[in-house]
Structures are given as C-alpha cells and as structure tokens.
C-alpha cells in the first residue's frame, strides 16, 4: 500500500529532509513542534503542524503517546522518526504499529536486538564478525570496572549500553581517571537515554571510524551501499564524513559490506541501517555497533550512489522491494559532509544558541546544504547544536576537498558562533588532504589552532571602527541618542523583542 500522509516525529534539518522526500513522493506531511519550535523551518515546510508540549524534549519530542495521538488525529498512516529522539526506541515503533501506523524503520525486535550495544556485540560475535575486546555486559560498578579495565589493559573506552552519538562515552587513559569518567559517563548516559548502563572495551590506538550503509526490504533482500569514513570527531561526535574512504579498497569494501549484511540478516533487519566499525592501522576492522535508523551523514552515500535513501526508506516501509540489487549499486566520484553546529570551537565547543541575524548559504555546482535554519531563525538552547549539513560532491577526493573549502568560505552565519572556522582549518590541513585520518586527528590538530593568525587584523579593526563610526553618525542624525541596536539592526532588535511573533511580548 502507498503511504498517503506521514508524521515526522523529529525537528531541525532531518525533519526538513524527510518532508522534502515526502513532497517528492506525493506524501502529505505532518510536523510536530515544541513550544520552542513554533517558528522552526520544519513547521513552515510541512502541510500540517501540531504542538506537542513544552520545550524540553522529555515533555514533547520524547512523549510517545502524544506523538501517536497526533498522528492518529491528523489521519496520518505513517511515522518517520528521523535520527535521535525516539528513532531507536523499540517501544515507540511498537506503539506506532499498534496504532495502525507504518513505522518508517526496522521492526521493534531489530531495534531492541541492536539497541543494547552489549546484546549487539553478542550477535556480531555469533555471526563471526570481529570485535574489539571488552565486556559483553554492562559494568556492575566502580570495582567491577576497575577490575575489567585492568584485565583488558588501558587505555579503555567507556560507552553507554543504550548509547549513540557519542553521548556517555569516555576515553580513560589511566586508572586514576576511571572513577570520575565512569560517574560522568553514567550521568550523561542516564540523562540522554534514561539508562545509565555503560560497558567497557579496549581503546584502539588512533583508529578510523568507518561504517557501512545497509538496506533491507521486507522481502528478504539485504544490500550494502558502501562505506562512510567518519574519523573526524570531537567529543566522540562526528564532524566530517566522506564516502568512499581512501583507506578502503574494493576488496575490503566487499568484506566489510558482507559482514554488515550478515549482522543485518541475523537481526531480522528491514529498512535503512548502519553498521559501524573501528579500523586499525593494519586495516583490521572491528564491529562497534549497529545504528537502526537513518544516519546524520547519509547524504554522502546518496551523492556517490545517486540513490535517495529517504525516498527508498518510504518505498520499503510501504512494502515495496528495494529499487536496486547489490549488482546495480554503482559509485561515482567522492562526497564529503561537514556538520555546521552552533558551537564555539575556540571555547571548548561551547554551545552557542541565539538568533541567526545574517545567513548566506553556499550553493553552485555540486554543493548541497541540508539545513534547518533561515535568516532570523533562533537556535533554541534545548536541543542539539546542529544547524546544517554541508555536503559536496566531486569527481575525486581532491576535487571534493577543493569544493568543500570553497563552500565553507562562502558560508556566512552571523549572530551565533559555528564550527565553520574549524572545519575550514580541518579541510585545509595537509593530513586531511592526504587522507591521513583517525579519531585522534582533531585532538592532535586542535592545540595548534587559533581563531586567527593576525593576517587580517588591520582589516578587522577597520571594519569594527567603521561600524562604530557610522553608528555614531546615524545616532547623531537621528536625534543624538546612541542606541546601537536600534540604529543599526532595527529588524533584528525588533525580531528579538517579538521573538518572531508580531508583537513585542
């Protein structure tokens, strides 16, 4: 049966991405929004939009019953969870199915099987997929952790059993730091996933993080769409991703792809999923976890394969067969994605919520901007900091790098701090250009990175002084009083005051 109306149980750029795919498939869309998101882009782009509660996600985007109720009331026949929030929540998938809604994602059983990283590790082991040595179960407490860590040997990695996106993850180099790391990891895991359980595994030295995109339909067909290289991370969160990986040749791609498909089959998987691997310097790959949802970085796979993954998700969820078989999958050129977050990379990645007073997104040949923002949009402080994903394609890696550098230089976001300046430095770095990547790349490079090297200091001073000069002149002409915001950014000031509504409340 064809899907007619779909509720997007998410916000931000991914909600926009799903709405775009639905529109192109002729499927009506229903957006949901918290009190902080009335003016969000996904609300404006959907056909319908309904409020679901206060700003905190726990009281809105994470309330299963309310989402199902809204979907029902709006007459939707399907739900797309996006990533994060309830996307890997088996109970939500079940609630949707119970309500007669098609859940655009894997069966609840598969989510559950892979949702627990510890359970997933057992499946991978049974499938003969190599793994990093570590605990197969969550660590009982500080004592047990200490003992296990000694057995495995430092450095060790603490990971949330129910985790994802690097939350509740800690690298521990020496026993002295273990207790503190365990406490904060458990706290973060509890806050993020409502389950404080963490497990422990050996930390691979300077590993690469390479993942395989798999796709399965409800007719038993399972294929892979090649790898994504996601080694550039900060605080265990991906910052730059690409496909293919310069570290992976076709033989290795096939081996990793087959291993990923084995895991997917064993889990009775359907729809889009990702199997994450750690790869060491000798090109040995180790199963990390399986993400039972669409990945943030799915666009790089789309650009090289030419396949619209979200459209394919919708077709597969509707019971159709995969639109292509493994033999039909072809790769063309190279794609890179950079994550534009509202953070200050020069102040410990401090989140930088606020109003985007000026916005100019790059475009032109083979540049794609998957954004949830617009000029005048206020980045709320309640959710993750992702503003937009900048994706480029080129015939080869060198061309893609040049294009990304060009696109980043064009990208202007005024009003909030972003990761753009650090991304520019990463893409320009000789190690990055040479493909010498590892999850330690950023830690190694960051210390040397400065907000500026004083090359344009005089010009910066001139710009700042001229702004002040004209501000004064206008103030003088407009009756003497010296009110910067009123004189210089009337619209912003007004918009801020009215927080986007028509009246100053």
């Amino acid at each position, binding site marked *: 049966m064809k899907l007619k109306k779909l509720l997007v149980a998410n916000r931000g750029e991914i909600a926009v991405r799903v709405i775009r795919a639905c529109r192109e498939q002729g499927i009506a869309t229903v957006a949901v929004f918290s009190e902080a998101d009335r003016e969000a882009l996904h609300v404006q782009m959907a056909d319908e939009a309904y409020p679901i509660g206060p700003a905190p996600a726990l009281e809105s985007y994470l309330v299963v019953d309310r989402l199902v109720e809204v979907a029902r009331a709006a007459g939707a026949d399907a739900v797309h969870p996006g990533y994060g929030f309830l996307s890997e929540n088996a109970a939500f998938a079940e609630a949707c199915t119970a309500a007669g809604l098609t859940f655009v994602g894997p069966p609840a059983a598969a989510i559950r099987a892979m949702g627990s990283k510890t359970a997933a590790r057992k499946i991978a082991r049974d499938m003969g997929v190599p793994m990093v040595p570590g605990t197969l179960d969550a660590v009982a407490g500080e004592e047990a952790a200490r003992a296990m860590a000694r057995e495995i040997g430092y450095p060790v990695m603490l990971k949330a059993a129910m985790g994802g996106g690097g*939350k509740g993850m800690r690298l521990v180099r020496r026993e002295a730091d273990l207790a503190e790391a365990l406490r*904060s990891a458990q*706290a*973060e895991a509890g*806050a*993020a996933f409502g389950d404080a359980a963490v497990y422990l595994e050996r930390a691979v030295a300077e590993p690469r993080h390479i993942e395989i995109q798999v796709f399965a339909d409800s007719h038993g067909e399972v294929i892979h769409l090649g790898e994504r290289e996601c080694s550039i991370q900060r*605080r265990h969160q991906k910052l730059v991703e690409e496909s293919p990986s310069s570290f992976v040749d076709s033989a290795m791609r096939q081996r990793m792809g087959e291993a990923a498909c084995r895991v997917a089959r064993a889990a009775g998987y359907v729809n889009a999923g990702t199997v994450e691997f750690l790869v060491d310097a000798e090109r040995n790959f180790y199963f990390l976890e399986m993400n039972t949802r669409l990945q943030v970085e799915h666009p790089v796979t789309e650009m090289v394969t030419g396949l619209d993954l979200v459209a394919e998700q919708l077709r597969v969820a509707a019971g159709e067969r995969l639109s292509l078989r493994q033999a039909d999958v072809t790769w063309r050129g190279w794609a890179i994605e950079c994550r534009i977050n*509202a953070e200050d990379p*020069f*102040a*410990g*990645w*401090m*989140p*930088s*919520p606020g109003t985007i*007073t*000026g916005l*100019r997104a790059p475009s032109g040949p083979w540049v794609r901007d998957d954004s949830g923002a617009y000029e005048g949009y206020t980045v709320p*402080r*309640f*959710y*993750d*900091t992702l503003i937009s994903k900048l994706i480029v394609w080129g015939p080869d890696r060198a061309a893609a790098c040049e294009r990304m550098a060009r696109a*980043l*230089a064009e990208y*202007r976001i*005024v*009003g909030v701090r972003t990761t*753009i*300046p650090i991304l*520019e*430095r990463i893409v320009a770095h000789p190690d990055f250009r040479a493909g010498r990547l590892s999850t330690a790349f950023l830690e190694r490079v960051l210390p040397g990175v400065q*907000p*500026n*090297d004083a*090359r*344009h*200091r*005089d*010009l*910066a*001073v*001139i*710009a*700042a*002084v*001229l*702004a*002040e*000069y*004209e501000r*004064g*002149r206008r103030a003088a002409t407009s009756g003497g009083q010296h009110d*910067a*915001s009123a004189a*210089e*950014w009337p*619209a*912003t000031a007004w918009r801020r005051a009215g927080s986007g509504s028509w009246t100053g409340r």
Partner: protein
Amino acid sequence: MKYVATVGEHELVVDVTGTDGRYHIALGDQRWDVDARLTAQGIYSLLVDGISYVADVVDRDGSCLVDVRGELYEVTVEEHTRHVIRTRGGAAGAGAGRTLRAPLPGKISRVAVRPGDPVKAGDTLLVIEAMKMENEFKAGAAGTVAEVRVQPGQAVNAGDVLLVMG
C-alpha cells in the same frame, strides 16, 4: 573621528573621515582608502586598493566579533576622548577580579569545589548541562575558591556569576 581599538594585547589609534561608503582611515602610521558597504545585517563588503573583503561584524557584550576570510577577531572600539578619560584613573580600567560567569544558559549539573578549596590549573570547578552536552569548567590558574554562588540542579542564565576565586 578618532577611536582606540583594542584587539588582543594591541591597542591601536584609528582616525576615520569620509562618508557615503567611502572612507579615509589612519591606522598607526598607515593610511587606507576604503570603500565599505553594509550589504546585509552585519555583513560588510570592503574594497581596499582593489582587494575585496567580506567582513561579518557582530556586537557581543561591548566588544564586537569580526569574521574576515575565516579569521575571527574580537575588537573593542572606544571613542578616543572617552578612552583617555576612562584610563586616566589607571586602576579603574582593571577587570572585576576572577569571577566565573555562565557563558550560556543551562543547568548546573555538578559543583566540584567548596568555598576555601585550593585549586590548581586544570581542576574541574563545575559542570553546566546545556544543549544536551555536559560542559566542564576547569580552573585557568591555581588559587582558592572564595565564593560558590550556585548549586547542582540550579538553572542559570548567561552572565550569572557562578563562583569567585580568591
């Protein structure tokens, strides 16, 4: 019009004349002719001897943040006479002591020190949970904690004083 611009440790005297987007600028012993236009809120186009720059300028509590060609500069601009008056007092110009203020709104998830505690550089002072990440604050230098003005679970706004070092 004469200004004093402070960027990092540098203090520069800048003299501006001109109007209608065309300006003559004296910076130290250098002279510049600048064609400058505000093409959008906070986005300026500058032509200097034919070189084209786009500079983003944002006011940020007093000083302003300038982004030019991917480089970020924090510049404080003050009218020259006002600067002279303010700084004649000398000490008056000094900062308000070592207080830790919340750089963004969030919730205090942990306080690692008590008044009187001695801390060394790098020690964790407290943790603010904001935008789903735990943001750890470490001591920049050794010292003693004088006051702690917040407690775990407490919501704070940007600018709130969290603790004061002796």
